[in-house]
C-alpha cells in the first residue's frame, strides 16, 4: 500500500498531566481527533520547525508532504524527541487548579481577631526515476536518510508533473491537491517529502514515529495548512507551540483570541476535565464564527504558576531547536534559568471554508503571561459550628449556583444536568436566599 499525503489527520495523544502544588487535572482520554502539533522556534529569519505526529497506522503507509520555503541541506533536518514535545505540551496545557475552603468558623474567628485578613489566592530511488522526475518538471533537489525517515526535497515547475510524480512514486494524492500544490509552486515553495525507512526504523528500535525537525532561514513566518485540508473529512485541529525571544506570537491574518480563563467551575469537572476542555473549546470556536486562533498559554519559560509540568530544561529547549541558548548552559531546570525563551501555545480548529489562507504569524513584544486555567473550590465539609456558619453555607450555595451557570455558559452544557451532577445538599435543593435574608443574616 502506498503512502498518503498527510500533514494532518494525525491523532493527538493526550497530555499526561502531572501534579504539583495545587494543580490538578485529568487528561487520560483523547481530547481531540485529527490533531497535529508543531513547534516553531523563531528568532530573526531563522526558524526551527518540529512536526509531531502520533501516527498509529502501519509505518509503510506513513508519508508527509510539507511545503518549505527553502531547499534543505541534510544538516538542516533532524529527528527529535517525542518526549520533549510531550513535555512542552504538558507544560503549556490548559489546567485545573483546586482550592479547599478552610473551616469557615476558624476563618471567621481569625477575621475577628485580625480584620485585615484577606483571602489568599492559593493558588529511496533509482536513476530512471530521477529521469522520470525530470521529464515531469520535478527536480529532486536532495535525498537523505535521517533517522528512520527517507527524505526528499523536491522542487517542481508545475503541479500536474508533481502530482503525477507523487502518484507514480506510490503516494496517494487526494483529489483537489493539484490546485493547492500549484499555488505553493507559484510561491516558490519547495516540498519536503518524508517516508519511513522500515530498515532504519527496525535498526533504531523505535516503536513509534519520532517528530521531524527542519531548520531554515526565511522571512516567511507562516505555516502551510492548505494541503492538510485537501483530504480532510471535517475540521482539523492544530496546536502551534511558538518559542521566541521577545514575546507572544500571534496570527496576523486571523484574530488571535484568548480562551476564557480563571473561572470557578463545579468540583465534579475534576473527573471530566477532557470533556470540559473539548466542549469549552468547541463553544469558543463557534462563538468566534470558526474564524479565530486561540491563545491557550503565553509564558516566559523560566517559570510557571501553577505548574502543569516543570518548565523545559535548557537541554530540552536546545533539542527543540532553541538555537540562541548556545551549547553551554544549565543542564537542568533552574528557576530563573533561560529568561529569553517565551512560549506561546496556539490552538486552531480549521477548515477550508473558514481558513482560506495559510497562517501567518508575527512575534510581538508582549511579555505578559497568560494561561487557560480553571478553578475548583471545595467547600468545607468538616464538623464545625459557629454563629456565622449559616452565612458561609449561603455564600457557598451562591458560589455553586454561579459555578453551574459559568460551566453552562462556557461549554453549552445543559444547566439542569450540571446542577444534577453537582449533587444535593449544597446545590439546587437549596433555593437561593430571599433578598430579605441578606439584610439581617438570618
Amino acid at each position, binding site marked *: 500500500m502506498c503512502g498518503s499525503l498527510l500533514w494532518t489527520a494525525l491523532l493527538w495523544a493526550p497530555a499526561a498531566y502531572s501534579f504539583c502544588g495545587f494543580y490538578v487535572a485529568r487528561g487520560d482520554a483523547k481530547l481531540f481527533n485529527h490533531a497535529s502539533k508543531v513547534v516553531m522556534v523563531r528568532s530573526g529569519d531563522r526558524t526551527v520547525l518540529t512536526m509531531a505526529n502520533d501516527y498509529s497506522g502501519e509505518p509503510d503507509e506513513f508519508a508527509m508532504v510539507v511545503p518549505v520555503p527553502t531547499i534543505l541541506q541534510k544538516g538542516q533536518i533532524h529527528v527529535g524527541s517525542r518526549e520533549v514535545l510531550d513535555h512542552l505540551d504538558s507544560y503549556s496545557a490548559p489546567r485545573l487548579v483546586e482550592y479547599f475552603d478552610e473551616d469557615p468558623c476558624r476563618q471567621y474567628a481569625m477575621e475577628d481577631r485580625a480584620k485585615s485578613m484577606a483571602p489568599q489566592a492559593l493558588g529511496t530511488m533509482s536513476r530512471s526515476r530521477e529521469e522520470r522526475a525530470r521529464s515531469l518538471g520535478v527536480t529532486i533537489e536532495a535525498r537523505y536518510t535521517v533517522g528512520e525517515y527517507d527524505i526528499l526535497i523536491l522542487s517542481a515547475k508545475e503541479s500536474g508533473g508533481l502530482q503525477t510524480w507523487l502518484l507514480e512514486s506510490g503516494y496517494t494524492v487526494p483529489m483537489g491537491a493539484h490546485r493547492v500544490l500549484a499555488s505553493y509552486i507559484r510561491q516558490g515553495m519547495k516540498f519536503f517529502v518524508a517516508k519511513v525507512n522500515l530498515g532504519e526504523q527496525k535498526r533504531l528500535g523505535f516503536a513509534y514515529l519520532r517528530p521531524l525537525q527542519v531548520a531554515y532561514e526565511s522571512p*516567511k513566518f507562516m505555516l502551510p495548512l492548505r494541503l492538510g485540508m485537501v483530504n480532510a473529512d471535517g475540521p482539523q485541529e492544530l496546536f502551534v507551540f511558538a518559542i521566541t525571544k521577545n514575546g507572544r506570537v500571534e496570527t*496576523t491574518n486571523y484574530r488571535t483570541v484568548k480562551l476564557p480563563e480563571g473561572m470557578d467551575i463545579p468540583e465534579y469537572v475534576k473527573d471530566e476535565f477532557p470533556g470540559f476542555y473539548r466542549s469549552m473549546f468547541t463553544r469558543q470556536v463557534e462563538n468566534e464564527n470558526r474564524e479565530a486562533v486561540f491563545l491557550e498559554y503565553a509564558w516566559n519559560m523560566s517559570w510557571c504558576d501553577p505548574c502543569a509540568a516543570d518548565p523545559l530544561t535548557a537541554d530540552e529547549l536546545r533539542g527543540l531547536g532553541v538555537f540562541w541558548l548556545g551549547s553551554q548552559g544549565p543542564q537542568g531546570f533552574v528557576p530563573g534559568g533561560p529568561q529569553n525563551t517565551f512560549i506561546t501555545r496556539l490552538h486552531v480548529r480549521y477548515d477550508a471554508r473558514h481558513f482560506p489562507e495559510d497562517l501567518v504569524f508575527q512575534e510581538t*513584544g508582549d511579555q505578559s503571561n497568560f494561561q487557560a486555567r480553571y478553578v475548583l473550590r471545595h467547600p468545607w465539609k468538616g464538623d464545625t459550628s459557629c454563629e456565622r456558619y449559616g452565612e458561609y453555607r449561603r455564600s457557598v450555595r451562591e458560589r455553586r449556583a454561579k459555578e453551574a451557570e459559568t460551566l453552562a455558559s462556557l461549554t453549552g452544557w445543559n444547566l439542569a444536568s450540571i446542577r444534577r451532577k453537582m449533587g444535593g445538599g449544597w446545590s439546587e435543593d437549596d433555593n437561593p436566599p430571599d433578598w430579605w435574608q441578606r439584610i439581617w443574616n438570618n
Partner: protein
Amino acid sequence: MRADPVTPRPPLDPSAAASRRHLDPRFYQIAVLSGLLIYGLGWLHFDITPDRAALLLSTALLTQYVCTKLWGLPKFDPKSALISGLSLCLLLRTNYAMLAIAAAVITIASKFVVRWNGKHIFNPTNFGLVFLMVVGAPVWVSPGQWGNVAYFGFLMACLGGLVVNRAARSDVTYAFLISFAALQFGRAFLVMQRWQVPLHRLESGALLLFAFFMISDPKTTPNSRAGRILFACLVTVLAGFIQFGLYRTNSILWSLAILSTAVPLIDRLLPGVQYDWSRVRSKPQPQGVPDEAASGVRQPALDRPALGPSGV
C-alpha cells in the same frame, strides 16, 4: 500655482460657512473612532486596557497643549490630538506605559516638528508607530485584531465613507482601495490561489481603518488629484513588495511612512491646491500658525492659514 481643476470645492459664502461650522468633520471622526474603540474593547477584546487608553488620550492632549503654547498658536484645540490619541488606542500595543506616553508625545510633536513647505510630512500616528518600530521598541500593531466579520467591514466602510465624504478628499481612499484590491486579486491569480484568499485579506478592519482614516489625511497627501491617485497607487505597490517580497507585516503602515517623504516631489511634479479647511470656516486664522491637521487619521486643517480663493 494653478487651481486644481477637479477639486469640487467652490468658495463658500459666509452664511453657508457658518451653517457648516458645527459640522466640523473632526467630530464625526472622533465619534467613529470612539465607537470603534468601544467595540474593540467590549466585543473584540483588544489588547489594551481602559487605563492605557486613558493614558494615551491624556498624553496626546497634554502634548498638544504644550506644543500649542510653545509654537504660539492662538488657541488650544483638543480635537486633533483626541483623534491622534484614539488612533493610537486602536493601533498601538505595548506592555510599557512609558512607551505609550512616548508614542503619544512623538505622534503629536511630529506634526509640529517634521514639516516641509508649510505641511507636515507624515501622518502623525503613522509616524509615531513606525518611528517606535524602527528604533526597535517593544511595540506592535496587531493587524489581525479586527477579524474578518463581513458586517463589521461593511459598517466600517459606511462610517468611514461618511467621514471621507465630508472631508472631500475621498479620491485617495478610493484609489488606494481599488489598487490594493487589484494587487491582492492579481497576486492571487498569479500564484493560483482561490479567490477567497484575496477576499479574506480585503475583509480586514485594519485595511479599512487605514484606507478611510489614515492614508486619506488631506494634509499629508499630494495637493492635486492626479498626485493623490499616483500616491495611493505607489503606496499599494510598495505595500505589495513589503508583503509579498519581504514577507513583513503591517506593510501598508511601512509603505505610507516611506512614501510620505515623496509627497513634496509629487507636489512639485503635479502641483495643486494645498488642502485648506479654512474655506469652510467663517473666521480666518492668523498667518504662520502651524496647522492642526494632525491625527492618526486624516483631518481638516482648521487652524492653518486661510489661503482662500486668492491663494489658488
